[in-house]
């Protein structure tokens, strides 16, 4: 417990490193492309377009405001999936630093989630453009947006710590997690409404953390009919559980990581 707190405070002390790692990731990713930074905003737009073309005929009539439904789902999913997926290699890719300089090692997966948050913030621009142009009335729950983001970030950090630590010892985790993510995406009601599922599956849906975060996000952006209290309770519980598990796995193994990366 004491060691955990020490490490937390050390991570806070290294916040400049966290900032630089996030900035490096963003700079490097777009430095060489012609459109550069615009890609951050184009990416969710194009993905939404694809989903829209394929699925609007199928589900367009079952969901009011299908455009807003899809883009909110995609953006929230990307925030989670991008961060946790890339972070599986967080320790291995930074082997050079971890094995030479004393650092709070957890900072590497956390920084990857951080750059995913940065991307998310930029993708809010096309999101609001679409919301406004499609004539949607923004939700009065919007002050809850920071809470929603905090919850999904804590949840993602927990998963990132788990995946990145396990990958050091069993490399297969990278591939297993890739498959899990694909299945998870289809189970998260991103481009179809939950109501098309059989009753039994709808109940199971409340065990899917991403379903709650995506719903919370939709409630914050445009859909005031959603049961926001329920999603908040479930979302908070899943964040705490995920973070507790991730931190424990990381912390139990932290001294061993250096011998295996």
């Amino acid at each position, binding site marked *: 417990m004491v060691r955990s707190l020490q490490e937390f405070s050390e991570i806070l002390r290294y916040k400049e490193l966290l900032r630089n790692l996030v900035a490096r990731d963003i*700079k490097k990713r777009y430095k060489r492309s012609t459109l550069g930074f615009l890609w951050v905003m184009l990416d969710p737009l194009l993905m939404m377009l694809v989903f829209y073309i394929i699925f609007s005929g199928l589900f367009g009539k079952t969901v009011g405001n299908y455009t807003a439904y899809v883009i909110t789902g995609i953006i929230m999913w990307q925030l989670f999936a991008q961060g946790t997926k890339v972070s599986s290699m967080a320790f291995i890719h930074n082997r050079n630093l971890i094995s*030479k*300089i004393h650092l709070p090692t957890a900072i590497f997966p956390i920084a990857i989630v951080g750059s995913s948050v940065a991307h998310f913030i930029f993708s809010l621009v096309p999101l609001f453009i679409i919301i406004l142009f499609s004539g949607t009335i923004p939700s009065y729950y919007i002050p809850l947006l920071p809470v929603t983001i905090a919850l999904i970030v804590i949840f993602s950090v927990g998963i990132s710590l788990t995946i990145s630590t396990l990958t050091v010892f069993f490399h297969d985790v990278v591939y297993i997690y890739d498959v899990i993510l694909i299945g998870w995406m289809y189970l998260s009601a991103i481009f179809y409404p939950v109501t098309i599922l059989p009753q039994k599956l709808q109940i199971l849906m409340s065990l899917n953390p991403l379903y709650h975060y995506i719903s919370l996000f939709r409630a914050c952006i445009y859909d005031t009919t959603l049961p926001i209290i329920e999603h908040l309770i479930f979302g908070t519980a899943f964040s705490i559980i995920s973070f507790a598990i991730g931190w424990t796995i990381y912390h139990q193994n932290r001294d061993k990581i250096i011998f295996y990366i």
Partner: protein
Amino acid sequence: MIHLQDISVRYRLIRERRSTFQSHLINYFKGKRMETETLWALKNISIDVPEGESLGIIGHNGAGKSTLLKVVSGVIKPVEGSVQVKGQIAPLIELSAGFDPELTGRENIYLNASILGFSRKEIDNKFDRIVEFSELQEFVDSPLKNYSSGMISRLGFSIATEVDPDILIIDEVLSVGDVSFKRKSMERILEFRKKGITIFFVSHNMDEIMTICSKVLWLDHGSKKMTGEPEAVISAYESYHMLPR
């Protein structure tokens, strides 16, 4: 002050033997992915380094010199023994570890100094001095991939020594850079010594050890072979390995 008591560090040594695809497959299904062996990188090492001492560490390749530095700087936690280190540590271990070739010199200075735990403000204050010492003013806004390896090590040395540490850890890094920069770095290290900063110095260059160190530790296969005055230890080491001087 640094106090190490009965330190032991163990590594896993992985052996990947070349084998036919068939035997590889059979082994795979038997669950034998890799053969591992343990290697004791350090065995029962105890050292006391009082403040202001500069300790040279010598020994053959794989003797455990770098591992000992990693224990002191807190990168490796030993399986046995206790470590007490008081003071801010600046590691000068393989300087390029924290650099990114795609970023500019300026961006790399910020990145690297934050790896050492500095805040933005502290780096702002040190920035000009770092650039000045490295003599890389004209290149500071070019990406590091355009630098020569000597230039990169100059930048690394400048960052790590602008830190004002209590303990400086130097692992075979003086061999880089041109003659004039080498002299400059040597002067800077001696300045640190005069200021009473504790120094850990690993090198295969006995002249450098003689110049910098007040005490020398000789490691051999992870064990302490000898420790004492530089002259005595170095001459014993050289006659042991029959190196003509």
